[in-house]
């Protein structure tokens, strides 16, 4: 306790991460009935977290070495599980991202969730998430990271299934939990193998030992490949990606916070956390690169075939996560982390803007929102366009800088295939993003649709909302959105200062370079002619995508059908997520439910129980047999024997 008070850094770390836990407990146990108080407690605690993380960032900005605290949590023979904090540039950056977006989303939710019967529960779960996520981010050991990683998954499950009365919502929550669990099994096994083979899960020591060739190569490769399973689950990489679009069943602020900006980025974060270790295995890096690429391309195609506002952003999140993994796997430590940072900002922005539209028009279909005059909501429309420009990678928005950084890394990769894929991805991203924007900006068939909705009292509803626009509900939603839009405009220009912070002393790559590893990550940002060619190429792709979308959806007289309409098979393929869900469903039904489950259950009833009953039968039959033998009724003897033999045969047949 004393050390806690003497050391302001430790105090800030402890307070910032654990207050949300207290807030959750208090809300669940005491203030469930009082919505206002619950929100106050939760927002209050996350504000403290925000202040703590900013304090830590400022205090430790120039710190030479990572600051680490560890306390023994569990001592089991040779296994020591510490609980503590690791404060280095990467964790400070991520902590700040999480705190900022959590804070904004919680403020936004005051408006968005107002009037919901589960309001207090919502804030309890938000606090649970904030606690778990921040404790995960500053975990000093992989095991602590894993523990909070699982808790983050729990928070995600609870928040996706928040509207539990809706079957699809609880279904989506279950799917998310089980699918990420599948990846986590790999993660867990990877950690176990590391514990057994290396004996230490401290992130710092793991990275050092990996770089210093103190861990056998095969061990690095096996554990890295297994740990990547965790990344695939949490960050929705192929083939575990379909849970993320389904997770959009949760309230929109949840989608903004968990399923785009922070939680799903945890996989990428974990990857960068052990990047020096991971990069020692070329095989694992190659696999990650391939998976990232496939994920990015597949989900981009899916985004082109949906009319659901949130689904578009969800697919785009998957694809951008794939893009980050590509960047990291190609050796671009800074590029990957930088894209994570900018993406957190602009994707949260896009979701929160969508939330305002959804709150206003009670539909997720962006065609209908457009037809009902969505563009009249100036603040969210402008902010959403800012987010869309950032997502497409247009100068001077933040996405431009980070995408450029990743493409730069890919360009330096010996195999140019990856660069090509990255450029195609940029094209598709711009296309599907602006397909949505143009649908909302230039709606067709307004009159027809308007009549319908007027009759349903849409005009009347609009009057209500006019009042709302000046009320606190609108502003609690609009202000966070504007802040995020501002961030998306300026964040890109902080590239060099962020780079020196992340790559500076005490950072992971600095150790990497010091130990003479393959620390060529920093070397990627050459400013040669190739760089400018790439710059022009990427911008051309993005602008080309926007122009393409404009031709099909934006310009006067555009059919708003899109080129996919000409290829119905392809469109169906994209819309059905490449039949990944159908495959999964079939697998579950055929292999799990009617396969193994059924076989085992029948085995239980027929063979095991049947066997026991058989023994009883034999006992009784044996007694009868003896008595019949004495009475000399041969036909009965025969009958009993035949039945008995038949039973034996049946038993073996069923076994």
């Amino acid at each position, binding site marked *: 306790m004393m050390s806690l008070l003497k050391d302001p850094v430790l105090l800030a770390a402890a307070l910032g991460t654990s207050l949300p836990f207290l807030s959750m407990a208090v809300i669940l146990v005491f203030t469930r009935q009082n919505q206002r108080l619950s929100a106050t407690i939760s927002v209050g605690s996350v504000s403290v977290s925000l202040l703590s993380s900013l304090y830590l960032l400022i205090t430790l900005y120039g710190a030479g070495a990572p600051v680490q605290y560890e306390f023994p949590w569990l001592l089991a023979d040779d296994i020591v599980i510490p609980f503590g904090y690791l404060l280095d540039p990467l964790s400070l950056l991520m902590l700040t991202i999480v705190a900022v977006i959590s804070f904004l989303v919680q403020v936004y939710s005051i408006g968005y969730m107002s009037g919901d019967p589960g309001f207090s529960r919502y804030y309890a779960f938000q606090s649970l998430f904030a606690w778990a996520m921040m404790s995960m981010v500053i975990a000093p050991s992989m095991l602590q990271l894993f523990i909070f990683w*699982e808790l983050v998954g729990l928070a995600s499950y609870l928040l996706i299934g928040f509207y*539990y009365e809706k079957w699809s919502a609880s279904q989506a929550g279950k799917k998310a939990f089980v699918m990420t669990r*599948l990846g986590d099994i790999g993660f867990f096994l990877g950690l176990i193998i590391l514990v057994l083979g290396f004996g230490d899960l401290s992130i710092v020591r793991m990275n050092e030992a990996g770089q210093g060739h103190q861990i056998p190569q095969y061990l690095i490769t096996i554990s890295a490949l297994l740990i990547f399973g965790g990344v695939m689950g949490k960050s929705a990489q192929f083939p575990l990606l379909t849970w993320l679009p389904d997770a959009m069943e949760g309230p929109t602020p949840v989608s903004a916070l968990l399923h785009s900006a922070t939680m799903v980025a945890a996989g990428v974060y974990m990857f960068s956390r052990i990047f020096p270790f991971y990069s020692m295995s070329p095989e694992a890096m190659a696999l990650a690169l391939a998976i990232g690429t496939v994920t990015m391309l597949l989900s981009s195609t899916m985004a082109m075939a949906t009319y659901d506002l949130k689904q578009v952003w969800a697919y785009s999140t998957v694809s951008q996560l794939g893009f980050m993994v590509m960047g990291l796997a190609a050796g671009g430590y800074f590029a990957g982390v930088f894209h994570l940072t900018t993406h957190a900002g602009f994707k949260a922005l896009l979701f929160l803007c969508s939330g305002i539209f959804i709150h206003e028009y009670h539909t997720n279909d962006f065609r209908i929102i457009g037809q009902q005059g969505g563009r009249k909501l100036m603040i969210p429309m402008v902010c959403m366009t800012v987010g869309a420009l950032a997502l497409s990678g247009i100068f001077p928005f933040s996405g431009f800088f980070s995408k450029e950084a990743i493409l730069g890394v890919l360009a330096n990769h010996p195999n140019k295939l990856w660069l090509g894929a990255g450029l195609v991805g940029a094209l598709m991203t711009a296309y599907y993003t602006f397909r949505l924007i143009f649908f909302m900006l230039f709606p067709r068939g307004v009159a027809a649709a308007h009549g319908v909705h007027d009759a349903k009292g849409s005009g009347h509803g609009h009057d209500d909302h006019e009042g709302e626009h000046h009320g606190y509900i609108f502003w609690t939603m609009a202000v966070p959105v504007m802040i995020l839009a501002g961030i998306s405009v300026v964040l890109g220009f902080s590239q060099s200062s962020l780079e020196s912070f992340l790559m500076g002393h005490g950072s992971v790559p600095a150790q990497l370079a010091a130990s003479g590893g393959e620390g060529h990550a920093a070397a990627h940002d050459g400013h040669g002619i190739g760089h400018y060619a790439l710059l022009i190429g990427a911008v051309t792709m993005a602008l080309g995508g926007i122009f393409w979308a404009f031709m099909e959806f934006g310009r006067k007289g555009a059919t708003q059908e899109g080129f996919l309409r000409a290829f119905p098979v392809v469109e169906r393929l994209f819309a059905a997520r490449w039949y990944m869900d159908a495959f999964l469903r079939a697998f579950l039904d055929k292999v799990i*439910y009617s396969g193994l*489950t059924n076989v085992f259950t029948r085995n239980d009833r027929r063979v*095991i*129980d049947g066997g026991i009953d058989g023994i009883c039968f034999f006992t009784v039959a044996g007694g009868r047999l003896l008595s019949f033998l004495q009475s000399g009724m041969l036909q009965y003897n025969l009958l009993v024997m035949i039945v008995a033999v038949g039973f034996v045969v049946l038993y073996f047949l069923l076994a």
Partner: protein
Amino acid sequence: MTPMEMASFPILTAILASTIVGLLVIVFIPDGRDKLIKQVSLAFSAVGLALSVWVYLTYDVQKGGLQFVERYLWVKGLGIYWFNAVDGINAPMLLLTAVVLFTGVLTMWELEVRVKEFFAFMFLLVAGVYGVFMSMDLFWIFVWYDVSLFPMYPLIAIWGGTRKEYGGMKLTLYLLAGSALILPGIIYLWVQGGAGTFDLFELQRIGFTPQVQRVAFIMLYLGFGILAGVWPFHTWSPVGHVAAPTAVSMIHAGVLMKLGAYGILRLGMTLCPEGLGYWSELMALLATVGIVYGAFVGLAQTDLKYVIGYSSVSHMGIVGLGLSTMTVNGINGAVFQMFAHGVMTALLFSSVGYIYDKTHTKMIPELGGLSRTMPVASAFFIIAAFAGIGVPFMASFWAELLVFISAVKTYPVRGILAVSGLVVSALFMLRVVQKTFYGEKNEKWEHIPDVPLFLATPRIILVGTILFFGMFPRVMLDVIQSAVIPFVAGLSV
């Protein structure tokens, strides 16, 4: 063996006496005074709980070894001792028993049928359980073991539910079969020992020949294994759980199954370390099959109690797997899991008990949407389900972690298979939670009140226990470890 200090006050006998005196008092209360009977039961179970907590807290971890020892020669010719003691392995078990009994009595607060007989039988059952856990004399262990089995049949057949006679009979026959293996095992060891003693530790010092150990171990393993729900001798347990009334299911799955695992550890593994070495591969195999198989069969169940029953089969497999590794952390994890699973499964049954009392059904398809009508009652089940899935900060997470680390080390293939079973167990638990508690509000249950605070007490205690040991695992593990480290050191000698 470490030198023993005799306890100045026979606190263990006092724990045992709390149930037996309680039983006698209950018997002499006139019929019809149901309220009084319940209060008396609660009081006596509270005495047991207080004493067990006291023993747990004052157990000196630094010193380790046997503490609170009471050892008196009882029958000289046969070498039977009244020998009770506590070490790091049974201290958590006593605590578990006390917690489950106390919460079980509270859970049955609304019982109306033959109240007196019910609580009398329940106290008899728990007397046996306490006895097995605290006794260090083979004769007494067997006696108490049979004492704990005997009340099961009436408890199920009279107060039970679904197919109660079938379930009760099946359970009784299975457990008696187990008992029929254990008794010869014990006698065999007594004869082979030749020292004319039933004292566990004197027998341990004799050091049986490998041949004897192999034979004795498999008998004890199978005998106790039936009770521990070892695959393929597990089918009695879901059927029995389903048939039994709530508190009996709690004691049964929460404590009685642990008795089996405890017996394997205390008798089989202590007396026959070489027999363990010989059979450990089989143990690991059966345990792994149990983990995966239990989870899959759990997927197909439509009765809430069957689901819990099969989850118990799966979770007890983790105990077996941990024991079979013969490593410190494997056994640490196994004992921890015995405790954690006991509390968790008691919570599951207790929660289902309330739902069943109010809706008169435990069929999943008939339920649904319960979270809307009874959020608090549902929350208890959901929390327990998460404990079952192995979410961190729940007691069982640590236990599973330790077992899996050791299992992957000792038996890589089986360990990995067992870990993969976690996906299935997550799937089947979440499936039950979804179908029972989520979904549209069910008109049929709209009139049902949420669980009132008093009736929620047992569940609050159980949730608190799960979370406490989940957050501060050292409070449990340091105690367990103080016994397991010397135990494993003894195995390798």
